[in-house]
Every structure is written in C-alpha cells, then in structure tokens.
C-alpha cells in the first residue's frame, strides 16, 4: 500500500520535470531561431483563429417498463390501473412483519422473453438485492431489485431515427442490463397542508429496468429508441407501454463535453411522461447545459424533473447529493436459476430459456425487412407502417384481400390521407375508429374509379364521424360518385375554357402549366367530383382542336 503510493508520487514529480523541460526547450529554440516570427505571432489575435472544438452531447437512457401481469411481483394482490385507493395491497406490499416475497413466474418469463428479443445474454443464476431508500411510499425502507447479478446483460437495440427534415438513419445502443424489480407506492404532495398522501396500490408492481449505455447523442435518437422499444414490448405483450399510466417511464442521463475530452458531469432527468416529451426534455437539458457552460457555470450531478407544462427541467430537493443505497443481498429470496440447455422444457420451478425463445413473435425490424422484400416497399414507407401498428394491420389486410390493387395505392392512401387526416385532428391513429373493411371499400371504389381521391378523403372524414355507416351508402347519400361520362365532362370542360380565357391563351402560347388552372376550374365546377384523368385528356383534345 505505502509502496505504491510512493511510486505515484514519483510519477507526479517526474511528469512535472519533463513538462518544465519541454517548455523551456521550445522557448529557447524559438528565441534563437525565429524571434521575429514569434514577435509577429504574439501580437496577432491568434486565439480567435484557433478552430473551436465542437461540443458533443451524450445521452443514456434508463427505462422502467411495468411487466403486464395479473398479480404483483412478489405478492398476490392485483395490478389493475385505477383501482380504488389502497385496495390492491397485500400484507407484504404494506410490509407487515412476517410476510415473505414469492416470485411471480409470469414476470420472470416476460423478463426473459424481453431479454431475448433485445439480444441479451440471459444469466443462468441471477440474484435479488435490497436497495435502501427512506421514502414514505416505500414502506419496507428498501426496494427489492437485482444489482449484483441481473436477469440478463449485454443486449443491443438497433432502431430507425426519424427526424423531421432529415434522412432516416439507423442507430444502435447497447443494453447493459435488464433487471427485475418492484415499483414503489405513489405519493401525492399536498403543498397547502405540507404533507404527502400515499397510495400503495403501485407498491410491488413488477418492473423491468433496462439500462442502456450512453450511446445516443440527441433527444430525437432517445425518442426513437423508446418508440422502437415500445413496438417490441407490445409485440411481446410483456408491457402495455401506456406512458400516460406510468407503465413505461424513462429517465435520461445527459452530459456534454468537448470533442476529445472525457465525458462531462451528467444530470439525470426524471418524470418524462410521453415519447414526444423525451425528445423535448433532452433537447432542453442539452441546451441548458451548453448555456450554463457558456456563461462560465459548472454542471453538477443532480436529478432534475421534467416540467411538461412549462417545457423545462427543474432541480429536485432530496437528491442533490449522491445517495448511499446500502445494497445488500435479499435474504428472503434464494438465487433465481434458469435452464439454459437447448431443447429443454420448463418445469414448475425451473424455466427453460430455449422454450421461451420459441414464443417470441416477429419483431418490428423483421416486419420492415419483410415488407421491403415481399411487398416491394421502400425503407421509409416500411418504417412508417411498422411504427403505426394499426396502419400496418390495415395495409396487410387490404393488400391480402384486394390483390389486384397496387401496394402503392394502398400505402399512399393510408399514409398520405388517413395518417395525415389523424395528425391534422391531433388524433392517435390507434384512436381512429375507421374499420379495415370500410377502408377496403373506399380503396376499391377509388381503384374502380367510382370515386376520386377527393371523395375518398371526404369518406374518411365522414366515417370517422359516423363509424357505423356503410361506404356505399355514404357515396350515394353524399353524391360522391366520380363524373366519368364523356359528355358531361366535355360540357364541364367547355364551361371551364370559357371561364378561364386567360389561362387558355397562355396554354396555347406554349405554357403547359396553364392547363392546371383550367383543370382546377373544372374541379371547382364539378364540386371536386370530375374524373381528373378524363378531364385532362378532354381539355387537351378540346384545346388542340381550337388551336387548329
């Protein structure tokens, strides 16, 4: 011990000496050889010319996903969201002395399936630990978690990053650890009476904590990772991923450093309640740190809360100093063993990882590849369809039953019309009640040229307001049929030509674009119902003949 310390001291003094020598050598050489140059350089404002090193931001995520289960992780009380206050509480959850934890088999199965889907190494033996906190909503005074030996380690996630105005790219983040742990109760803070109200319904709910390496750089990348994770967990049915119910919670560790330097001091942002606010909160925090440093301030290791209403992060009171969690092995739970042998089957007390791996469904990225290969979609279309599971469902069912319809017509309609309509109403596509059969009818009518795109859009709107209506009836009722009869179209065209004399002149002078103005007039005259393909043909014919 004392020996190594001595060596260190030597090293330090050594380094100091070489450093001084180096400096003096430079100085001497300069003085002798290029005195004039040095004079000149010294008077120049050299600093301004030194290229500023770029600031880099580093983001790591910790995700808590509530495992979808009927009962809690270690007790037999229920898990339904919104149950009456303190009703889903077993004696164990209220930490009544003498109660013991018994692990829920389904939670272990879900944890293993999720680990496998994320490419993790499942550990043959994992252990439970106590992590001590002193909070009112944690009646035991500790949380049972997995710290020394987690359920699984060393996975990775590759996901598309969609940033408005930029090309879609793929990013990979390592998954360091996946562990099982209990949730705490819920506290409501009563500022007025200076007290906290505690509901223990959430105490003991099963969670998977996923710890990702700090491999991300921006808020958009973090949001895209979570979006992909949600898709995967929903496919596996291991988590409802309802962020609004707290079933998926994201904490972000954020730091900034200059290129080439070691990582900076990080802050942790908690309480991020939606995919959109992940991106907002992280972007805000990166900018706050950049501003703090630019103003000469220092970043301190602290926990900050995301305030969604005011769109900013706020420092928390209790966690200003690094906490000592006093980890210790959970004496009431022996280690958890799993069977890693290929071809094994699960028994009452020993789960087989091989058997569980066969229950894993197709994952989002496989679906994208399949869409690209089997349906000839481009990457971006495949990503959009997979990211909106309901659109994907519609697409697959429509393309299966209407095989003569080109895929392009289907996905263009779903993405450009249905999705755009929902976005305009600020509505989640999941909450749009239009049935796949109705969409099929609309697309069939569209493809048979019974209606045009305008009418199809109108039908989407009508169906959203009245999901019970039949497409064919709506077409009749609102008189949406496309005008296809040549006579009618010719009449309309004649009228439009008469109305748009100026455009006709321009067109005949060779300005091809002027035809759109005339066609637009026809559309207006026919209240958007004319078959535009025929209109354009007819107009070209009519204008050619008048030209002669």
């Amino acid at each position, binding site marked *: 011990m004392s020996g190594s310390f001595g060596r260190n001291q030597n090293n330090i003094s050594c380094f100091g000496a070489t450093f001084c020598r180096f400096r003096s050598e430079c100085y001497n050489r300069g003085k002798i050889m290029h005195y004039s140059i040095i004079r000149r350089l010294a008077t120049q404002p050299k600093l301004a010319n030194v290229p500023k090193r770029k600031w880099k931001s580093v983001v790591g995520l910790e995700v808590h996903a509530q495992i979808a*289960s*009927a*009962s809690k992780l270690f*007790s*037999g*009380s*229920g898990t339904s969201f919104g149950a*009456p*206050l*303190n*009703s*889903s*509480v*077993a*004696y*164990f959850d*209220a930490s*009544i002395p003498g109660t013991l934890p*018994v*692990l*829920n*088999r*389904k939670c*272990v199965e879900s944890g293993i399936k999720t680990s496998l889907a994320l490419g993790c190494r499942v550990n043959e033996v994992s*252990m439970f630990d106590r992590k001590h906190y002193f*909070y*009112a*909503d944690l009646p035991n005074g500790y949380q049972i978690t997995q710290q020394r030996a987690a359920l699984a380690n060393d996975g990775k996630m590759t996901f598309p990053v969609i940033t408005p105005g930029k090309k879609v790219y793929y990013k990979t983040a390592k998954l360091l650890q996946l562990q099982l742990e209990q949730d705490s109760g819920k*506290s*409501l*803070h*009563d*500022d007025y009476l*200076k*007290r*906290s*109200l*505690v*509901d*223990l319904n959430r105490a003991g709910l099963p969670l998977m904590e996923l710890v990702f390496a700090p491999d991300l750089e921006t808020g958009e990348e973090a949001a895209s990772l979570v979006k992909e994770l949600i898709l995967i967990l929903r496919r596996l049915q291991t988590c409802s991923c309802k962020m609004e119910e707290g079933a998926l919670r994201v904490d972000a560790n954020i730091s900034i450093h200059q290129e080439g330097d070691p990582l900076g001091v990080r802050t942790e942002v908690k309480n991020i309640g939606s995919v959109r606010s992940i991106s907002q909160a992280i972007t805000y925090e990166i900018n706050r740190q950049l501003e703090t440093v630019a103003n000469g301030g220092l970043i301190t290791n602290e926990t900050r*809360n995301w*305030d969604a209403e005011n769109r900013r992060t*706020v*420092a*928390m*009171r*209790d*966690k200003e100093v690094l906490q*000592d969690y*006093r980890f210790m*092995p959970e*004496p009431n*739970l*022996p*280690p*958890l*063993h799993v069977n890693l042998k290929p071809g094994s089957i699960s028994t*009452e*007390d020993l*789960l087989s990882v091989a058997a569980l791996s066969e229950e894993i469904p197709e994952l989002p990225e496989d679906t994208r590849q399949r869409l690209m290969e089997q349906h000839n979609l481009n990457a971006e279309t495949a990503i959009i369809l997979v990211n909106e599971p309901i659109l994907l469902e519609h697409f697959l069912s429509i393309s299966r039953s209407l095989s003569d319809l080109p895929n392009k017509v289907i996905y263009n309609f779903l993405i450009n019309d249905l999705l755009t309509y929902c976005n305009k109403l600020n509505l989640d596509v999941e909450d749009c009640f239009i049935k796949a059969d109705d969409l099929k009818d609309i697309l069939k009518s569209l493809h048979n040229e019974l209606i045009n795109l305008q009418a199809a859009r109108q039908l989407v709107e009508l169906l959203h307001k009245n999901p019970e209506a039949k497409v064919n009836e709506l077409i009749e009722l609102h008189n949406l049929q496309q005008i296809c009869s040549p006579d009618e179209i010719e009449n309309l065209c004649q009228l439009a030509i008469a109305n748009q004399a100026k455009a006709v002149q321009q067109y005949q002078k060779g300005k091809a674009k002027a035809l759109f103005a005339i066609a637009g007039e026809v559309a207006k005259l026919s209240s958007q119902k004319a078959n535009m393909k025929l209109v354009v043909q007819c107009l070209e014919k009519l204008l050619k003949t008048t030209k002669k």
Partner: protein
Amino acid sequence: MLRLLSKRLYCKIATKSNEKATKLDFKQLTHPTKVPQTPVDAEFPDTSSSEIQIDTKTIQLLERLSLVDLDSERALATLKSSIQFANKIAHINTEHVRPLYTVLEQQQLQLRNDQVTEGDCRAEVLRNAKVTDEDYYVSPPGNIPLEQ
C-alpha cells in the same frame, strides 16, 4: 406448620430427584458436531487496543442512516467499541473465496403462478397507520421539486 412441612417434603423430593439425574455424555452423541471440541487459537487479531477515530461528518451520516442518536459520550463509546470488534473480520484473507450470500444457494427459487390471491384489505392495512385521510396514508412531505 403443616404447610411448611409439605414444602419441605417437596424440597426433599426435589433434591432427591436431582441427585438421580444422569449426566449427559457429549462424546457419545449420535451425530458428530462440526463445532470444534477443543479450543482453537483465534485467527482474529486483537483490535481492542487500536484507537478508533471518527470525524463528525461520518457520525452525522451514521446518525441519519441508522436514526440512532450518537450525541452522548456513552453512545459514541459503544459505537467505537462496535467498530473495533467488527474490524477483526477486515483482516481475514478472502482471496479466491466465493462469497456465500445464503445457505439456500443451491436451492431452486420457488415460483408462483400469476393469480390474484390477496389484497382488498384496505381497512386492515390502514389500521396500522397513525394518520390517514380518505383512504390515503398521510406522511410528512417528501421529494418535491426545488422551485415549488
């Protein structure tokens, strides 16, 4: 007088029966014990002479973690002697020894099927709380943002 006599009689019987009791012969136990039968030289070094120094910051931390008041001379002396005693194990060589966390390590952790079998006992669990309000437990204020 009669009572006294009966008492003495009882005493007599008691002393007699005591004499009759046979002594247990520990060397003839059917199951051999792992406890050493002869004293073994302590491998622990004697740490009782070394003086323990604790700075005030550490004492404050310990007080906060343990919720034990260490203000008095006596409490501090007890703490120091506890540390002195526990320090003995710090010198044991544990290299290449895998830590044993539980004697049940080789045992399969029992799993439970995912069924709701408990809960719905709000009145009972809330009875343990000193202060409640509308089915909530009430506690002093906890972790809240700084600027509120």
